[in-house]
């Protein structure tokens, strides 16, 4: 049975790491949700080879969406790893 101060410390370390992960993902989300689309006009001058999409249009129509999907599966994995590291994960 772990003592209470140990639990407290583990909780804090767990939450610090969780918060860091949250801010990282929020930054990526903000970049692909907003920042990149602010540069749509210069990006539209780049045409994706073969497919023919202007890059600025492509990012809003598909690129950012793909990033969001990949991010979510990565996040699920990373958060689970953090939970396991501190012993707070659910039993499998």
């Amino acid at each position: 049975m772990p003592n209470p101060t140990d639990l407290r410390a583990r909780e804090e370390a767990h939450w610090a790491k969780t918060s860091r992960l949250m801010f990282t993902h929020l930054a990526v989300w903000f970049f692909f949700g907003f920042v990149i689309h602010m540069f749509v006009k210069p990006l539209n001058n780049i045409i994706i080879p073969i497919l023919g999409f202007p890059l600025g249009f492509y990012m809003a129509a598909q690129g950012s969406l793909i990033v969001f999907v990949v991010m979510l599966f990565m996040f699920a994995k990373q958060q689970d790893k953090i939970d396991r590291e501190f012993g707070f994960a659910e039993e499998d």
Partner: protein
Amino acid sequence: MATTSTGGSSDFLSNLGKIYGFYTGGFLAFVILLAVLEQVGVPNKILGYFFVFFTLAVYAIIGILSRTAQVSEYYVAGRSVPAFYNGMATGADWMSAASFVGMAGTLFLLGYDGLAWVLGWTGGFVLVSILIGPYLRKFGAYTVPDFLAFRYGGNFARALGVIVLVACSFTYVTAQIYGTGLIASRFLGMQFELAVFAGLVGILVCSMLGGMRAVTWTQVAQYIVLIIAYLTPIVILSTKNYGIPIPELTYGQAIADITAREQQMLATGLTTAATLKPHIQPFINYTPLNFFAIIMCMMVGTASLPHILMRYFTTPSVREARQSVGWSLLFIFLLYFSAPAYAAFSKLEVYTNIIGRDLSAIRPWLFSWGELGLIQICGKNAASIDAVIAACKAIADHPGVVRLQDFVINTDVIVLSTPEIAGLPYVISGLVAAGGLAAALSTADGLLLAIANALSHDVYYKMIDPNAPTARRLIVARVLLLIVAVVAAATAATKPGDILAMVGWAFSLAMAGNFPALVMGVWWKRATATGAICGIIAGFGLCLFYLVTTRYFPGAGVKYFGMTSLLNPATGAPLVDIAKAMALPNAMESFPTLAHPLANKVGWFNLTNIACGLLGAPLGFAVIYIVSKLGREPSAEMQAYVDDIRKPRGRTVLEEKTT
């Protein structure tokens, strides 16, 4: 949370793959059967009825088989829905008639600027997973107001949560029922009012008996129908035109062709620089501020809408709740990244085969839509070649070919007409109708359940009669579901003019009302009950005030609240001359029609009212922060609960009496 599953339901859960695989195969066989029937000469109308009634019957059977008498099954499907299937159910829950039928049309009309909706309606799931969803799952709520009540000191916060929930869900569900009526009336030739109530029956058989459990398993079935229906026509079209069955890759070429054709139309006088809105040029329909404001409000709204959040209460674990958000977005993505392809292919068809054509050589697919008044050429319904020629003759100096400014198309037509543009048999059109119906029904189910659950669980059980026995709680839940559904259908049958705008408003209202309190409740232990209550009232209040004033009291907004005209995104000029409009006799009219010169055209900071959440949510955060800091910090006990919510391991914080 004991799931106490009976032998039958655990058999069902372990065979999900087989059951839904069989179902998908059965559905495809059914489509092929109808295709054969069409070839042997069965009339289109009969095929349409087959499609609608067969699919409705399947949903009804699933709904009835999933009936339940257990509270936890009724409210959260026994918390036993695997991540993958919950993802599909959320996809169907999320994608409404507006996504299925309207999205591609919006992109057709707005070009790049329409992508604000595509981005806004997908990126929000990142926030659901990172900030809120899994924590609410660990908390163990049945409804979103449940969490607000527990975290923020009781029934006052609960009542506020219910008000926010009803405000954002009711208009939304009305729009869905309206959508079912529209699709049924268009494809079956039923009278609109009758079609609305037919749709209502379809919705009720799915949700009445089995609550969340029944809705979950019908939504999975509906997702399968709607995604097959959405992708089939466009995959065939892409294969036909470009030889590759992946429209999402081939429409890049279509976009390049559209851009080239736009230049050509300008050069040959088929359009003018003032009428033409180049497809890929950004910020000509929305100003950059409004473009990003809409993205933000739709994203944050996603993470605050109760009917979406409550889907993540149904997974067996916190871990699966997180994975489930990923699956949800993947399933939603399949539709949303195809919508721009629909828009591009349709636009190319219109630009090359309608605009610039001699009037007598217009392609015939559009006449059936012209008859319904959905496509107009030269200001008249394009019902036949003769009608078009007569209408254009009436215009002075008309060159005898269709110019861009002569052509008006209703946005709903884009998806519905693609099968005809591609020259596909009617069975594909019927399939698309069945898909649109599935999209509208599944979203309506989820929303109705969210409203009825809030009323039965939060208002009746938690606030009025906490000692009510299980049987009575479930009866109350079902009766309330019926009442809400009938009221929503009655509202939809009156065809209220603002109905589609109201769906956008729902996101902003949810964002302003729920988001700050939910996020602070999990991420900031110091948030107090008083702080949250003030924050919800202030944020939600400001958002509602902005909406109602700009839409229904624009004169008062200008006179008393310093609102000014919104600006035209392309030219930067004001949309209305405020001084002139205020001098009109009806300037101060309340509840004016949409035609009123000021309605929806005034505001602060040139911010469109759909994005009012952008005013409300920051205020909500600020108020919660300041008021919480002024008060005493929450009890050690409450802070310990918050710690519990943050750790996936262990029992849920809230233990419901389930028997």
